[in-house]
């Protein structure tokens, strides 16, 4: 099933969707958006690419093993929870920096957690998609 329309469109769509997913991620900590949808958009982008070019090409395009993505995402989320423990606060307490950062507003551990979720969701969804597509 090779569609030339999809193959051409995805070349433009892939970077656009990745950018959009980053936008969703950064917007997420106090407006609609967040790591989960962001990660799903990443997965959708690569899933479209995989539909156009096959699972092998999809894996090549992703460059990193989706399983590793899951592991890194979990690690980042875990670290964001561990940081407040160092400060003597309960696990997962939000720590906010007082300096307003450009673009994202106040940065803090919830953003780090969201980043972990973003990678985790993208990795998990792609893992499932690649596995199912490779088998069929």
């Amino acid at each position, binding site marked *: 099933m090779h569609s030339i329309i999809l193959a051409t469109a995805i070349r433009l769509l892939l970077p656009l969707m990745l950018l959009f997913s980053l936008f969703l991620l950064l917007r997420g900590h106090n407006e609609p958006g967040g790591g989960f949808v962001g990660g799903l958009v990443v997965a959708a982008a690569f899933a479209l690419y995989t539909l156009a070019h096959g699972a092998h090409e999809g894996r090549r395009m992703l460059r990193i093993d989706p399983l590793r993505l899951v592991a890194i995402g979990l690690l980042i989320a875990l670290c964001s929870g561990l940081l407040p423990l160092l400060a003597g606060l309960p696990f997962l307490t939000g720590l906010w920096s007082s300096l307003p950062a450009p673009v994202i507003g106040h940065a803090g551990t919830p953003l780090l957690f969201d980043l972990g979720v973003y990678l985790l969701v993208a990795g*998990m969804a792609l893992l*499932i998609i690649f596995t*199912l597509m*490779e088998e069929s």
Partner: protein
Amino acid sequence: MEAVLAVVIGGLYAAGMYLMVRRSIVKMIFGLALLGNAANLLIFTVGRLVRGRPPHIPADGVLPSIPTADPVPQALILTAIVIGFGVQAFALVLIKRVYQTVGSDDQDEMVTENQGQGSGVKGQESQRQEQEQGQGSGVKGQGGEA
């Protein structure tokens, strides 16, 4: 509106239960998905139905100025949907694997109980031993389970 939703929830439960007792595993998975959705809708209805009134609190107040829907059930549903997504993805991979090993989606075809003396378990044990001896054989394609 509650009455309509109550009927819909009941219908979903009934359809889910009906599908679950069919012999086809595919229908069983559909049934499970319907049951999950019915439960989600139930929680949604329990959180009261109010239209177009987001639970915003004015800057100088401590309570919303008008009665609003409770956001907590919606957060619960979101969590439940995500979990359901994961479980159903796993179930799909599982039935695919079942279809590959059994060659049918009929649950009756899968029964291995009455295969005479122990051939099933014995076979499994020896197969495992063999696998161990032939270390490093191909294990690709199992990643989806993780």
